């Protein structure tokens, strides 16, 4: 009995001492960067004594909502933060782009030809439902070496509300006037109604549906397409060149845009001969005044780790490492977290 009591006492003391020394950072938000964030936070928590980071992938919108309700220390979002939401935070908001990703257009064709070329006037039309056959003259003309099947095009889209859809429709709207006036831009948009347009939940659902449907085409995150080994198209960029998704094309796209002071830069249609057209930053959102010096310094240390060590694993996980120039700017802005 006595030993039990003393054990309890020891545990209690150990518990309180541990709590006093350690800092726990909680964050929630975007699911798109979750694989890389969880890798970072695990490594950072293991390396840094007394600091643990918990991150919940709830979705960008939910993360921002948590941040506004002050239930989390930081949030993460693919669609940045709306100006009216930023205005609600009295402590001030610092957005930091932490990594970037690309959206691949995947397809399933018999014989799985690699690197199908899709011109700029073709892929928006496919997602508008105006090009409906793989044997459409425009697709055939761009791919003289590929034997295209006589199949209808089945478009697979995201059924759930998603930052991926936001970035994708933003790009399509920048390229095609008809798309802008039709479905428009959003986390969910009103896609054309047709029995050849189907929707599946999450990246895995879309990937599985594409894999099981001959003649399917759909948009998924590049990291996912790489992991799931589906074929993805090379897209014609603004300069007229065909570029496959990957680190090179992504970095060039990021370099084509100068980060503004608020760190929110969109790349709806990047310039540059080698730039992959559908590339986007993803952000972490912090408060400028945290009112807790240890927490703020832990957050700065976390950001520093992600910017230095973290960028090295980006490529292998299917994300784009931030260019040196961008890292320097983000590092400077991270000083605002106090």
């Amino acid at each position, binding site marked *: 009995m006595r030993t039990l009591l003393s054990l309890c006492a020891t545990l209690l003391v150990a518990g309180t001492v541990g709590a006093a020394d350690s800092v726990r950072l909680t964050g929630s938000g975007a699911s798109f960067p979750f694989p890389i964030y969880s890798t970072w936070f695990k490594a950072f928590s293991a390396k840094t004594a007394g600091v643990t980071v918990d991150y919940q992938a709830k979705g960008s919108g*939910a993360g921002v909502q948590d941040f506004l309700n002050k239930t989390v220390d930081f949030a993460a979002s693919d669609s940045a933060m709306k100006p009216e939401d930023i205005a609600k935070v009295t402590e001030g908001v610092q957005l930091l782009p932490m990594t970037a990703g690309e959206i691949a257009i995947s397809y399933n064709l018999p014989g799985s030809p690699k690197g199908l070329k899709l011109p700029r006037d073709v892929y928006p039309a496919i997602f508008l439902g105006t090009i409906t056959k793989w044997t459409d003259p425009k697709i055939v003309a761009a791919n003289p070496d590929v034997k295209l099947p006589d199949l209808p095009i089945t478009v697979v889209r995201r059924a759930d509300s998603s930052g991926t859809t936001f970035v994708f429709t933003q790009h399509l709207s920048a390229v095609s006037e008809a798309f802008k006036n039709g479905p428009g831009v959003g986390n969910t948009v009103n896609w054309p109604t047709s*029995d050849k347009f189907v929707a599946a*939940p999450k990246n895995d659902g879309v990937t599985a549906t594409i894999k*099981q449907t001959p003649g399917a085409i759909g948009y998924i995150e590049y990291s996912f397409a790489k992991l799931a080994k589906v074929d993805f198209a090379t897209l014609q960029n603004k300069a007229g060149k065909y570029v496959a998704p990957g680190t090179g094309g992504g970095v060039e796209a990021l370099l084509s845009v100068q980060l503004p002071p608020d760190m929110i830069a969109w790349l709806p249609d990047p310039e540059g001969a080698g730039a992959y057209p559908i590339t986007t930053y993803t952000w972490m959102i912090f408060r400028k005044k945290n009112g807790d010096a240890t927490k703020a310094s832990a957050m700065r240390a976390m950001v520093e780790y992600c910017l230095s060590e973290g960028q090295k694993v980006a490529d292998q996980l299917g994300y784009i490492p931030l260019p040196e120039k961008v890292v320097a700017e983000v590092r400077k802005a991270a000083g605002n977290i106090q």
Partner: protein
Amino acid sequence: MNVELFARDRSSVSGPPSAFDFFVDRGFRALAHGGVLLILFVIALLLWEIGGKAIPGIERYGLSFLTGSTWDVSREQYGILPAIWGTLYSSLLALLIAGFFGVTMAIFLTQDFLPPQLAAVFRTTVELLAAIPSVVYGLWGIFVVIPFIRPFADMLHQQFGWIPFFSTSLSGPGLLPASIVLAIMVLPTIAAVSQDALRAVPFRIKQAAYGLGATHWEAILRVIVPTASTGIFGALVLGFGRALGETMALAMLVGNSNQIALSMLSPANTLAALLALNFPEAGPREVEVLMYGALVLMAITLIVNILGSLIMMFANRKLR
């Protein structure tokens, strides 16, 4: 001595109830009443919560919400007619499939076609189907059911394309694969409840039928199944209710396309899938209409249950 007396008292059939018996009786009654009240309270709370949050949506969209067919968040146009249509269509189709197989299975397992041990094995296997998570059904649907039915679906479309039910070609997810998987999901419910109903038919009724010279099949189809029909019908209503609310597997298989089509090979949408997929990232405005949608789903389930009870009452009366 005292203890012995007490024991003897309790074992005797006659005699006044003891204080303990009183306590157990009152206690159980209170517990049962409490349970019923708790259920009513939870339902009221649900209605209050959902209804309260849905009121702004109801005020803004009114009945046009039920008749509209666009779901456009950025332009704030919401309509759920295609989702209602898809919910009823997929559930009815699933009920048709699962009802046929569930009831025949129940007859097969209860009417002495199999040795009792073997019947128990089959019964457990069917009941195991209920333990599989919805997501697994969804994935199984995508990777197994869709590729499997594709050749049949293509043939149906080519040969019988003039029938409205097969007027489109299957593009992958759609009403037919969704309904097939849904049927398998509600099969355990229908089979289990129908078996109970069939087993509840008194043995002497069966004996009487045989005594009148009925064959095995005549006894089953003319006497036993009609006698158990109320219970079987209850099983179907229960299965239908479950099918209406099924979410994840349908979200993965139905295609989530906002269109009203007669063809069972075309993609559609269901209310439960619509709610599940749009909730996580919904803005405050959208939450209101989603709550409205949830209310509609509850109303549909309620109407189905009431209709079921009415038909059952009617059938009962006719039987007597």
